[in-house]
């Protein structure tokens, strides 16, 4: 048996543990499984890593994430040992400075870190990439999403009203993990392949975003493109104020139709980029929307050395983002109808980050 570094407590039973977890603030409200030494040991044995190995420091309260602490929180979330490498990859991705975890756990915005799992791990570990992908029904999605949240909670100290200042919060803050539905169309590469990983790599991409806004887009390609473009250009989303990545989720039925009509994934990115535009002239009819201190026009020009709004040749067609691939596209969900979704991101305050999942050799 490993000599654990974390303090140990003896409890009578699971209910005794649960009372202790609530009293000590070790859960965000959802009941958690007891992290018994035996269960945590099983995770350590599977990983074959030193429990004291440091993964990183989790903001906002800078708790030290070791392999042992990750294992403990994974057990509480209901993870099987083989899910834990997915959690580790997600945690490492979200600790990349570009992701700005400190900011997106503390902001007044309702964004939450979304884990998108792609590659062979989806089928191997039983992630749901079909019906109900955003919520309900699959242990892998729920447990991995919960484990990441518990790490942000217990190590990061992201407590609503204290350090987490999201005015509304979000159901996505309990667990937020989806998987890519790779339907095998060569012209529709999974997200991780678009980002330079091998197709047989398993990868987690972390993206800070709102809960999904659904898009019903039956009626052909023209409707798919125009409805998505409309959904992407909603006033009040943060990417209106600060242009940054946005996620478009398309279901397999929609993708197959697009592909039949000659739309590769690349062409779909480009079509959304071309159609989803801010019309500054129209928006300027709304008082204070364009050119004010806190609105479009100030922010777009600040980003990544982008040209200022004033220098844009066509003010009726201001792009949402600088490059088509900044509208992330993920194939996921079931086949039953013509649904899609848009998850607005946290503007330019965070960038999505992908990490390969490393399973024990």
């Amino acid at each position: 048996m490993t000599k654990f570094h974390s303090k140990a407590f003896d409890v009578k039973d699971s209910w005794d543990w649960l009372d202790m977890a609530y009293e000590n603030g070790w859960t965000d409200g959802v009941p958690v499984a007891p992290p018994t030494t035996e269960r945590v040991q099983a995770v350590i044995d599977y990983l074959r890593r030193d429990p004291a190995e440091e993964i990183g420091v989790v903001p906002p309260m800078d708790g030290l994430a070791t392999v042992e602490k990750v294992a403990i929180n994974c057990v509480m979330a209901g993870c099987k040992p083989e899910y834990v490498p997915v959690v580790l990859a997600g945690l490492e991705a979200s600790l990349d400075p570009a992701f700005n975890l400190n900011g997106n756990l503390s902001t007044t915005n309702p964004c939450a870190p979304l884990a998108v799992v792609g590659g062979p791990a989806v089928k191997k570990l039983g992630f749901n990439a079909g019906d109900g992908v955003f919520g309900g029904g699959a242990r892998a999605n729920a447990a991995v999403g919960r484990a990441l949240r518990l790490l942000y909670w217990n190590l990061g100290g992201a407590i609503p009203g204290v350090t987490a200042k999201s005015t509304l919060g979000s159901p996505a803050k309990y667990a937020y993990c989806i998987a890519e539905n790779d339907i095998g169309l060569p012209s529709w590469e999974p997200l991780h392949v678009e980002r330079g990983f091998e197709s047989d790599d398993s990868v987690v991409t972390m993206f800070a975003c709102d809960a999904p806004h659904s898009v019903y887009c039956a009626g052909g390609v023209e409707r798919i493109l125009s409805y998505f473009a409309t959904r992407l250009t909603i006033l009040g989303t943060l990417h209106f104020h600060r242009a940054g990545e946005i996620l478009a989720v398309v279901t397999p039925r929609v993708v197959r139709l697009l592909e039949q009509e000659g739309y590769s994934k690349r062409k779909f990115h480009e079509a959304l980029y071309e159609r989803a535009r801010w019309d500054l002239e129209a928006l300027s009819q709304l008082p204070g929307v364009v050119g004010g201190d806190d609105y479009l026009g100030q922010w777009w020009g600040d980003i990544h050395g982008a040209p200022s709004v004033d220098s844009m040749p066509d003010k009726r067609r201001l792009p949402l983002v600088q490059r088509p691939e900044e509208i992330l596209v993920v194939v996921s969900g079931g086949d039953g109808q013509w649904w899609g979704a848009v998850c607005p991101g946290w503007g330019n305050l965070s960038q999505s980050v992908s990490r390969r999942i490393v399973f024990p050799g």
Partner: protein
Amino acid sequence: MRVLHPGREETRHDTRMAPRLRSLDGVVLGFLDNIGYTHSDGRRDMYPLMAEVKRVLEQRYRIKGVLWRLKPLKGQVAPPEMIKEVAQADAVINGICL
């Protein structure tokens, strides 16, 4: 049943309180501004509420000097060199955010 502590037992966060000042008289006051304010001619200035706090404090105390730094992005931690600069002040007021 033996269970393990899931939370922060080790932290890299230095949570010690800074030494308290006896008075603001004679101090250099730092302002770490998250948002700032843009004048119509494009000049950047202190966020109005922060500017009002500064005005009131200058009125009430003999403030020796003011050090104002504007963060490049409000949702991100200030760059280390900016924190180092503003830490030259005797006390720092940090805000405002959205």
